[in-house]
């Protein structure tokens, strides 16, 4: 399905990103993961990528730092010769009520979750334009559509990704590059494990499919959007949320 494609997954060492990276490798792509700091997790993911028989690479990159981002993509192109798929997945949370969000908590979340998407997208647009093909998939969140208590910074960044996705889709469409956003709902990961039980129960009550999603649920959609089968889909936001949000 993705034979001879080269994919980059940011935030690829753990959680949804890891699932996406391994899933793309299973579909035949060589996969590069960018990770922020958890080297052990990155090595585990890399090993699982390589077990599929595909090539893999793990690079420590702060996606909010343009120099690091540009150097990393340069390395990807010099190692693999091309970039076909970019999955902007890296994200952090600094949840708090708006009144308690410190300026630094705001900046960190916007820098990693939104500016990081801009920087990585800008870096791949040149090689993708030259190739006349590419797939950019941005991982947003249903919170970007609905807002959420205690997540003003996170939801602002995730909503920002949706605007960025639509603009980039328009700019790059004529060059054979599609850009879409995926908005997961409640997905079981390290990031959601830390939520209080009552928050989880309350969330479950609102999900029509009556279960939390898995990282694989998201990864399957990303795999489809990355494939040639999705060549007529661009500028869209697709939810993977068990019916949680009807927009």
């Amino acid at each position: 399905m993705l034979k001879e494609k080269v994919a980059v997954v940011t935030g690829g060492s753990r959680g949804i990103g890891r699932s996406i990276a391994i899933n793309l490798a299973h579909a035949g792509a060589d996969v590069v993961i960018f990770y922020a700091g958890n080297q052990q997790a990155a090595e585990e993911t890399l090993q699982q990528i390589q077990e599929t028989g595909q090539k893999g690479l793990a690079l420590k990159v702060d996606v909010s730092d343009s120099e690091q981002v540009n150097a990393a993509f340069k390395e990807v192109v010099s190692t693999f010769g091309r970039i076909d798929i970019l999955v902007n997945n890296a994200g952090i949370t600094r949840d708090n009520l708006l009144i308690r969000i410190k300026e630094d908590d705001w900046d960190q979340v916007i820098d990693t979750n939104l500016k990081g998407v801009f920087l990585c997208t800008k870096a791949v647009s040149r090689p993708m334009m030259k190739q006349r093909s590419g797939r950019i998939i941005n991982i947003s969140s249903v919170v970007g559509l609905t807002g959420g208590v205690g997540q003003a910074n996170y939801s602002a960044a995730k909503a920002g990704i949706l605007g960025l996705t639509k603009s980039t889709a328009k700019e790059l469409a004529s060059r054979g590059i599609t850009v879409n956003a995926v908005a997961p709902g409640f997905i079981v990961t390290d990031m959601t494990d830390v939520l209080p039980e009552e928050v989880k129960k309350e969330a479950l009550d609102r999900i029509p499919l009556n279960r939390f999603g898995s990282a694989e649920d998201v990864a399957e959609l990303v795999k489809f959007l990355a494939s040639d089968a999705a060549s007529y889909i661009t500028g869209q936001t697709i939810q993977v949320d068990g019916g949680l949000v009807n927009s």
Partner: protein
Amino acid sequence: MAETTFERVKGIIVEHLDVDKEAVTLDASVKDDLGADSLDVVDLILQFEDEFGVEIADEEAEKISTVGDIVNYIENNL
């Protein structure tokens, strides 16, 4: 004799913008006379980079207005 830089540039512009050869003069403005939009210009720059093996930085690319500007830049940076 080898093709001149101008002829190679002209060839790329004619193909990419679908304009007449005669219209591509050194004085022609890529946007105003040849009808390129801003994305076309970015795209042309990428093609010139590949064709001539030069790197055209964003700041330089913004200064390019005419076909002659492109030819001069390439010849000065080969």
